[in-house]
């Protein structure tokens, strides 16, 4: 369902439209919240942020909006997760809200390091894709979504044992591919 259809549905049947919007963007919102809060919060905190984000989104979505829903939703969840990040950091005692630098978490990071990581991430993703399914799915669920074998098993339809086996073999292949790439670059 595209954004226009979702917005139209919200206008005609808010209950259904809200659910459609949620279903379409749940994954996206969850991933952003997870990525921002995984180091400071529990799974509960991440879910709390997702719930807060969607509550805001669904209550305030402008059905006449011209731009895409994704940019609006992305903005809401990022703001919510930054806010949650601060609260959680404050709770843990090692974050000062008065600190100017803390207002933009991203700005704390070294730009060059980030660029390098982005390049590595793109390369890694290519190699993960090349593994084919279900190995690529397993790797992403394990290392990005941080799910365990049992959860991955439920998603992929494999058994946890198979997930573990495949994961270790996939990891081995990933290592080989990365090493090969790295060696090729060095000798180029």
């Amino acid at each position, binding site marked *: 369902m595209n954004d226009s259809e979702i917005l139209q549905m919200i206008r005609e049947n808010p209950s259904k439209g809200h659910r459609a919007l949620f279903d379409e963007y749940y*994954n996206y919102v969850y991933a952003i919240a997870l990525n921002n809060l995984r180091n400071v919060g529990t*799974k509960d905190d991440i879910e709390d942020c997702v*719930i807060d984000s*969607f509550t805001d989104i669904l209550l305030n979505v402008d059905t006449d909006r011209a731009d895409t829903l994704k940019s609006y939703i992305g903005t809401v969840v990022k703001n919510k997760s930054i806010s949650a990040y601060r609260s959680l950091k404050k709770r843990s005692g090692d974050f000062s809200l008065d600190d100017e630098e803390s207002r933009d978490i991203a700005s704390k990071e070294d730009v060059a390091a*980030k660029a390098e990581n982005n390049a590595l991430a793109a390369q890694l993703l290519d190699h993960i894709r090349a593994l084919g399914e279900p190995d690529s799915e397993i790797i992403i669920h394990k*290392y990005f979504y941080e799910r365990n074998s049992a*959860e991955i098993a439920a998603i992929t339809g494999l058994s946890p044992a198979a997930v573990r086996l495949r994961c270790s073999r996939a990891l081995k292949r990933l290592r080989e591919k990365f090493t090969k790439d790295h060696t090729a670059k060095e000798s180029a």
Partner: protein
Amino acid sequence: MDNEKEITEILHNADDKTIENITEEFPGYDKKDADRIYREVEKRMALRNSGESADSVSGVERYKKNIVRRIATIAACIAFVAAGTGTVYMLSKSGPSKSSSSIAAVTENPSDNGNGYSKSDIPEEITQEWLYERNKNCLSNFTRCSIFLKSSNGIEYYGIDQENGIKLSTVSTGSEDSHDQMDIKHLSYTYQNKCVEYIVPSGAEGGVLIESEPKDFPIFNYGDLLADLSSWSIVGRENYIDRDCAVIQVTQPGESPFFSGTDVLNFEVYIDLETGLFLKASVFNNESPATDTSAEYTLEATSIYVDDDVTEIQNPKDFKLLAEQFNENNIDLSFLDVPLKHPFDSTSTKEEPAIPDNITKDWLSDRCKNNTKNFDKCYMEYSESGQHWIKAVDNKSGIIYRKSIESDVIDYAYNGKRISIWPKHSDEPQVIENPVENLKLFDYGDRFDDLSLWDIMPNTQYIDRKCAAIRCLPRPDDNADDNKDIMVQYIDLETGIIVASFTIENGTTLPIMETTSFHVNDSAAEIPTPQDIKKLIADGGYIVEEGLDLSFLDGVPNVTAETPAEKATGAETTQSDSDLPAEIDKDYIVNILNNSHNNFNKLYAKTNVTQSTPKHPQSDIVLHHTIQVDWNKNYLYEISNTEHLDLDTFVYNNKLIHIDKEDKVYEVYEETDEALIDLFKTTITDHRFTSIHFRDFLEETIANKDTWSITGRDTVCGRECAVIRYKEIHDEEEYTYTAHIDIVTGLLLKYTEHTPIKYSFYDDKKQCEEEVSDIQNITFEVTELKYDDDTPNLTTPADIHKYLIDNNYKGEDLSFLDE
């Protein structure tokens, strides 16, 4: 890239664009988690719409966690009940685990409360008569219900637990001034027909507790509201808050028992078809119900939970703790001390326990007398008469093993014969035959038949085993001097085995036998196999008694698989004795495994795969497949017989077709190394029929004979199998596997895995994450098996091609199926 940590760091630090790509390509969408989260979103939206500020909505979760802060004030009552009106720990859904369970997904429970109701009762076409009955008798449609409503009064909550006689209701409103609490105007708690209410008088800041009469909540009692069928009609069927509802319009004079203050029944209602409850109602202007669409009064359920979806309705003990805070009038709250008839157990299953709560003599006597039915294997270490022993039995293989630690004597019974192996202290034969009937372990004969000679003492534990302790009087007809004392024996309730015996002489308790270690079935240590014993004798240079033939240690066990473990599924033995090899050793196993493809041309099998964790039985998974293989023509067809898993696989000509029967599409893949192997599918790599569980074993482990052992024989589907046990280290944890190999064809017919796993879930009561150590059980088993001429007509590549075309499946070119 050296290790997993690097992958994690790279992905975690990815930019937004990469995250977008990942989430689009690899959705992490878990429907059950998503449903649960959406319900929370709805609740927060409802709360915000009722006047709460944004901060207070998100604060509800945090405030719930800070519940202690509120205990000293009226808000304490609000806090616990607000847990029922807000985000609800005690009163919310999600069965045994509120939030994320890290194990395999919790399957949704249909609302089947055992009262004869289930969703399948809802007819395709809803009639007025049916709907009237459904609504009138709504209380018979569920045992527990928890429902939140938004109305003109504020936020209302109603909870009912009919099994325990609990009814709870609250009415609360949001406060403009306090952002993180709700003001309760009224609360009613009924337990076993006694009721107290908490009321905040108009204008007062706080409330008090008063005695009251039990009330029927209107939401659960409609009486004959819809009896006059001519006054209302069904105008539609809608989904409302994920509930299947009939929409009716009512127009009739009279007083509504549901909406106070109205004198006309003029409203539109959404009736939940499962429970018969009103989930949404709009009361219209009296004078122009047909045209005036502005409702004067509305009531909307924001969420509803029924039966298994309801966690505990507030129990009386916990309610009393809070009620006492407001009990200025010193009302007698002792009625809340009565224990629940049916305590809530979030992990309970509906299965009958094997061991009853009340142990009777008859039950215990039978348990002991027929104890071979209670377990497959038992391994125990004990002391008796000043010596230390090991004894073990394997009921399936018919092995009895006993060893004296001090004297190093072994007794071994198998296939109707018994030998004793003595230490090599002399030149006399050390391996001698003894009467097998004298080696009776756990065989108590008629010892417990005379119930008058013994009594059961209160249940007890012995070496961490649940036991019954019995006090035995001497037999009146037994004149032996050493049988005149009273004995106390501890009987393990699971197996019916005596694990300790004491005698009471002159008031002194003296031990006769005391078990120090006791293990059953999978936790039992490996019992020496007949082959192990034979090897021990040969390698140890023991002198065998003249005329003693040890070939009985090679034979097939005479014991049939009439044990509590899985039984052969009725298939008659299709093998003749001449098919069966006399000796099975590791070399033999390696050989048949590697050459299994030469041992048959066609195969038809039905398989089951089950996966379970004892502490979360609701997440059990069972998959059923039918497999057809034709080696000569090089094709394999795997059909899913599992509900909600409509995926079939057809392999031919080095290509694999993945058939989605639900969406009627198929995809064709080249059969590359590993890319297509799936746990529940098979592969014809190198013409080898196997499942993924065993693939690595065949390829990597089988050659290393030190890592696995043959532990016995068994039958699966009437086929004689060698049972192999092996261990694997993965992620620094040890996993143990058992495999049943058809000793003629070399096929894997059964596989079991019992591995330790850890997962975490959110404990509602403790309000924290709990990590659970559990055992994961996986079993693959062939339940029906036919080879070659016995196979039915198998589905050919041409058949598949025709089927996909005739049924309008969408996909790529399938001409390779005609080659």
